[in-house]
């Protein structure tokens, strides 16, 4: 028990130090822009269809849930606004992060882990190149920037999914569904969603590059790195969600003078 607690703390510490190194690398000797765009393109293409599909269904689900609630108060007119706001603020970013964690997180840590255990990373160092700059930084930034594109795609699909459910399940028309979206979904919701998405992407990108880069011990070591990535990113994202919610709320309170 104590040993595993110790390991967890050491792991978190290692991840934080790794994050610091990535940031330092980015500030001192960044990689080429083209490498980032290549990675962004790769990740976005890889995950676009799953994210879009999941976004569509999540939008539909939240509309169904809200329908039951707002019906009691005879406020069906607010259905579109409420469901969309919930998706943009919370469910959307969380969903994208989980999608990315399953696909891109696992892929990245397996790829880097394999390069590590087959000494390809040592080979890069031996050629006088810097693996942080050549491998880690482009992947890290690629995951973060692609998460924005995926977020936008996923959210658009979720609005569409919600709209269809509003029509078929709640029985309201398009105009009614869309009418209150602009009034309820304020700039704050969008900013909050974007901010969360950014934080989740940073958590995910740090964990999967860190786990892959520190893999050791052959195929088994790579397998372990991938499993650890999956577990750590899920936990990390949920914790980050809680933290950003708490912080977001306090900021809003102060802002509104309450």
């Amino acid at each position, binding site marked *: 028990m104590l040993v595993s607690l110790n390991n967890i703390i050491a792991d978190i510490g290692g991840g934080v130090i790794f994050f610091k190194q990535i940031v330092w690398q980015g500030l001192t000797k960044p990689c080429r822009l083209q490498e980032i765009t290549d990675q962004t393109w790769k990740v976005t293409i890889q995950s676009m269809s799953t994210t879009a599909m999941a976004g569509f269904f999540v939008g539909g689900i939240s509309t169904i849930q809200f329908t039951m609630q707002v019906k009691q108060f005879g406020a069906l007119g607010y259905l579109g606004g409420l469901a969309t706001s919930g998706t943009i603020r919370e469910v959307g970013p969380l969903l994208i992060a989980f999608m990315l964690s399953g696909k891109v997180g696992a892929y990245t840590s397996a790829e880097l882990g394999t390069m590590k255990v*087959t*000494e*390809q990373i*040592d*080979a890069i*160092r*031996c*050629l*006088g*190149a*810097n693996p942080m700059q*050549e491998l880690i930084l482009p992947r890290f930034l690629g995951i973060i920037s692609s998460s924005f594109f995926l977020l936008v795609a996923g959210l658009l699909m979720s609005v569409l999914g919600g709209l269809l459910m509003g029509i078929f399940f709640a029985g309201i028309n398009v105009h009614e569904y869309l009418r209150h979206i602009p009034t309820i979904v304020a700039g704050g919701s969008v900013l909050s969603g974007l901010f969360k998405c950014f934080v989740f992407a940073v958590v995910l990108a740090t964990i999967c590059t860190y786990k892959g880069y520190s893999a050791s011990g052959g195929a088994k070591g790579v397998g372990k790195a991938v499993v650890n990535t999956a577990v750590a990113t899920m936990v990390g994202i949920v914790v980050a969600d809680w933290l950003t919610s708490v912080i977001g709320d306090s900021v809003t309170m102060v802002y509104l003078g309450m």
Partner: protein
Amino acid sequence: MSQFEIECRGVSKAFDDVLLLHSIQLQISKGETFVLIGPSGQGKSVFLKILCGLMPPSQGEVLHQGDNLYQISDSKRNLKMQDIGMLFQKNALFDSLTCAENIAFPLREITDQSEAEIQDKIGHFLEAVELPHARDLYPHEISGGMQKRLGIARALALNPKLIFYDDPTAGLDPITSRTIIDLILQLREQNDSTVIAITNDMGRAYQMADRIGMIVDRELIITGSVADTKSHADPRVSQFINGDLSGPLTEAQ
């Protein structure tokens, strides 16, 4: 400034408190070819990695042209690494890149050469290791001997002054082994480089070496020139080079 290309002072290495190498001293001069031999699992590969800057020793110092490799700044060490070529025991080729791209990698990342110059160099090195036909194949699509040769070409792409070969002939047939050693020697002449190589093929060791050293029982026995090695007094050395079944190396300890 040290007159030695590489100097090792009291280098020890332990993994999880198990001592693998103990207080090793070694000096290698410019232009020398030093061959490491020894039973497997005794730490030859680990020692090579310590020498080339990939693995810090638990104790002691490694100096390259007088600079402590593990204490200079990262950027200075990166510069030094550009002067080092390494062939890994398992080649460590970039498996997502074609043969040509493997050779191009250091040229693209490190140098500012134009695309035409890089293509030129790729052609030259593929020619030198007799792999022009494999240009667009991936490492897993070529044979073990070809992978070794590609590994050598990649290691030499930056014209390094200091070259490390970890078992360049392991698992290869005698003729391919010979071709690879000939290639190594020919490239050494061309570049006037310092070479440190691991091999357990004594014929190839004699073919290459100016000096030979054997890693056994946590220490490095520098056995000297080929002739000195053949007549070395230590029973472990004579047992190893003759491949005797009985002797101090095979006795239960």
